[in-house]
């Protein structure tokens, strides 16, 4: 077998290669049946080579990054994204940065709910993770409010001030995010009513 992806008892599936073009063109040239959708047509091996070369170039993104902007004046506030996206396991890791003028304003929380809505509702991801350097207690508190749960820690992730520091790991499932968003939306509605 050459590069099998799926293997049966008698056949297997593999990627096309440019070397297949000649045989593929021969199939077209010797086609006996006439009842198929477009009938029978000669194919050039050169065309098929180009087709086969292009087949495996497109790749799905592993990182999706957004600029976070203020609606009232389009000002750039920072970025939010999903990294290490695994399209089979449907997982990804969120990351974000907001410029100092926009911190502690609630805008970051709103943007984070948008990126999580994008991840769970549009991309249909199943589990989202996030990592936080242990000294960054502000980010850890923000993640807890968004529904993330502690999943463990990567020990001795870095050295700061001569001592080892850990990286905290959090995970989040869709239902947990929906519940956290409901609480956040209720708080927002209450603020607006006041």
């Amino acid at each position: 077998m050459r590069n099998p992806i799926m293997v049966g008892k008698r056949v297997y599936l593999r990627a096309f290669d440019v070397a297949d073009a000649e045989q593929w063109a021969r199939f077209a040239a010797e086609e006996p049946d006439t009842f198929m959708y477009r009938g029978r047509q000669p194919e050039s091996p050169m065309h098929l080579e180009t087709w086969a070369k292009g087949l495996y170039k497109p790749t799905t993104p592993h990182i999706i990054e957004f600029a976070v902007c203020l609606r009232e004046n389009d000002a750039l506030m920072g970025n939010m994204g999903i990294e290490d996206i695994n399209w089979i396991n449907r997982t990804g890791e969120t990351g974000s940065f907001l410029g100092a003028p926009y911190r502690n304003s609630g805008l970051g929380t709103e943007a984070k709910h948008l990126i999580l809505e994008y991840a769970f509702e549009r991309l249909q991801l199943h589990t989202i993770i996030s990592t936080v350097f242990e000294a960054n207690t502000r980010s850890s508190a923000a993640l807890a409010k968004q529904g993330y749960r502690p999943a463990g820690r990567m020990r001795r992730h870095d050295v700061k001030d001569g001592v080892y520091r850990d990286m905290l790991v959090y995970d989040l499932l869709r239902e947990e995010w929906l519940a956290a968003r409901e609480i956040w939306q209720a708080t927002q509605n209450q603020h607006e009513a006041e």
Partner: protein
Amino acid sequence: MRVTYLTGTTVYLRALLATDKETVAAWFPSPFPKSVAAAEEWLKESYGSWGSGKPTYLIIAQYSDDQPVGSCSLRTHDYRRAFLNFTMAPWLDNADELRAEALRLLIPWLRDDQEFMSVLVSIASDELATIAAAEELGLEQNVRLREYIARPGKRVDGFLYQALNTPWKVADA
């Protein structure tokens, strides 16, 4: 081109070779098909060298016939921490056992020979032979990611196991 210190009884690990394009389905870290031409291009352009921050790949080959049966990607930015991810050939029935043997070769090399402070390995909760090997090697399960890995008809948790070296005590020269 066997590496003397990364050779076990069933498998051994080695650097990538140009000829690995011919067996790309056995080791490429994606379930999507890749043609030999695309693999050749990837080998020339995308392969990361040691310490570049991009993953470096080691082929897991069978000792009996030198055929690749998987790969291990190794990523490090700083030579203190290494992250390992395994890919096994999709047709194997004994992928878990072969991965476990590869882990038994890699950890002593990275932790004790290369002296990485921390080696992190992703293992699915149903990869029992690999988990047994990790625990036998003294790795700690430090992270459990819920429902992190898709399996036919279900999801299983993902673990991060960690091998920690003894703390460095570096004296002035």
